[in-house]
Each structure stands twice: as C-alpha cells, then as structure tokens.
C-alpha cells in the first residue's frame, strides 16, 4: 500500500516540487500551505510522515512540531524539517528533543530528498 506523506510549506512551488517527486515515486501526498492548516488536516489524516518547512508565517515548523508532539493522537508521527538555514549544534539537540528524524536543506537535490524520505518511511 502506498505510503502517505504530508507536505507543509508556505511556498507553493516547493509544495508542488515535493509533491511531484513523491507522487512520481509511488507515494500519496496531502498538502497544506500553513502550519495551522497542517494541524487541522492532522485531525483527520494519519500520514506516514510529515515534511515540515521550518520557516512559515504565522506558525513556524518548530511550533507545529511541538503541537504535534503535545497531541496524544499525533505525538507518534514521524516528522522531518525542511529549512533554508543550517541548524547549529544547539539546534540539532532541540531536533532530538522534538523527535525530528532528519532535516533537509533547501535548495535540495531531488534524488537526495526522495532517498531520505524513503529511508525514514521504511523504518
């Protein structure tokens, strides 16, 4: 059965790119353009992985992730971040605390993006 990936990013062209990469490789996708919309979708959907942009207006990826972890229904979801900036060592420790499994830096290589998603989803 096809695995479902939720993409949350405020930049439509990034959402479209990630969606195209994933769907052409057999994944199903759910998309949201803000953290608030992503959380709303998670009330009903149960994706195999959430790909969260770190920097979004209104609610950052970090804030969305914290809310996912606080909700008993979603706390066990697999989450990865997509970011334009590199995390510092302090930031990497925070990622561990939030149980974020990986992070991908934008702009990314399409094959690398796909391989990392495949690896995490298959765990």
């Amino acid at each position, binding site marked *: 059965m096809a695995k479902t990936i939720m993409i949350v990013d*405020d930049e439509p062209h990034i959402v479209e790119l990630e969606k195209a990469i994933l769907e052409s490789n057999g994944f199903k996708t759910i998309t949201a353009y803000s953290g608030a919309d992503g959380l709303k979708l998670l009330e009903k959907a149960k994706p195999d992985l959430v790909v969260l942009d*770190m920097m979004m207006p209104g609610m*950052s990826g970090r804030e969305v992730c914290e809310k996912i972890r606080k909700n008993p229904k979603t706390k066990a979801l697999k989450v990865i971040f997509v970011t334009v900036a590199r995390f510092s060592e302090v930031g990497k420790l925070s990622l561990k605390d939030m149980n974020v499994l990986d992070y991908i830096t934008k702009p990314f290589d399409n094959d690398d993006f796909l391989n990392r998603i495949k690896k995490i989803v298959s765990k």
Partner: protein
Amino acid sequence: MDLSQTLKEKQIVLIVFPKSRYNAELNNIIRAADASSQKICYVCLNKPYNSILSNIKTMGLSESKYFFVDVLTSTVKTPAPLDYCEFVQSPSALTDISLAFSKAVQEKGCDNILFDTISTLTIYQDIGEIIKFSQNMMTKARVSNVKSVYITLKEDSEELVKDLTMFVDEVVEL
C-alpha cells in the same frame, strides 16, 4: 563562561534578558562585543544611532570602531548622509537592513554584527518574517565568516526566542 569569553569563542550568539534590565545589560553586551571584535556593525532597531553613539563615548570606547545601521531616524526626519551610518527607511524594510549588513561587512570591514534588539521587530513584522530574516542574516554571517549577536527581550516573544535558538551557536540568558 562569562559573556566576553562567549562572544570571543562563539560565532552566533543569542542573548535574552528581561526588558527591565535593558539599559544595564546593553552596556555589558557592548563592552563584551567591543572586546571581541575589530569593527562592529551596530544595527539600531531600538534606539537611534546618535543615542547609541553617545552611550559608546560615555563608556570610553572608541567610536571609530563602529558602523551603524539605523532604522529609526528616517521615520521622523531625513538624515544627512554619514560615512559611519547607513539609514534605513523603516524597521519593516528588512531587505534594506540586509543590504546594509552586506555593506557593513564588504565595504566597512565589520567582523561582528550586533542586533539591538531583534525582538523589537515584532512590533512591525510577523514573527515568521523576523525568523526568516534572522535566518538569512545568520547564513550571511556564516558565509562571510563574521560574528553576530542577537539581543532579544524575554517579554517580546517566547516563540521568536525558541525559533532563533535552533540556529545560533549559544544562547545566553542574563
């Protein structure tokens, strides 16, 4: 580790303290940044450059060591151009602040950028925009191999502090 040592050893530092201690802590931060840099780009987000310059003189520090980016003065009058200060139209002109940052590093030789006070921008901008801007500044600092110090006030935004923490080398709570 004391503040001077932290600013010497770490490239990007976030300093958090309560609003009530702003004046006292600011002087300590300026002294520590001064001791760890050859030339400082002082981004004035909270007070106009002339107020900071006067403070620097009172503290007995060398004013020639400072290049200012002032986002406040132009909101009340048209300032005369100065060699040691770049005037930005308003605190919400983030692209212009970013350009002034590049000028400070490339043309003025600044090796440390002090943002006083980044959380003040929450008055003018969505937190997401401030985080994007700060991230962009941090990336520029790393690429240019310069240091930067981000002052934030505890009361301004807890979320901003949490997000910035992800990208800095050290968080100092005073």
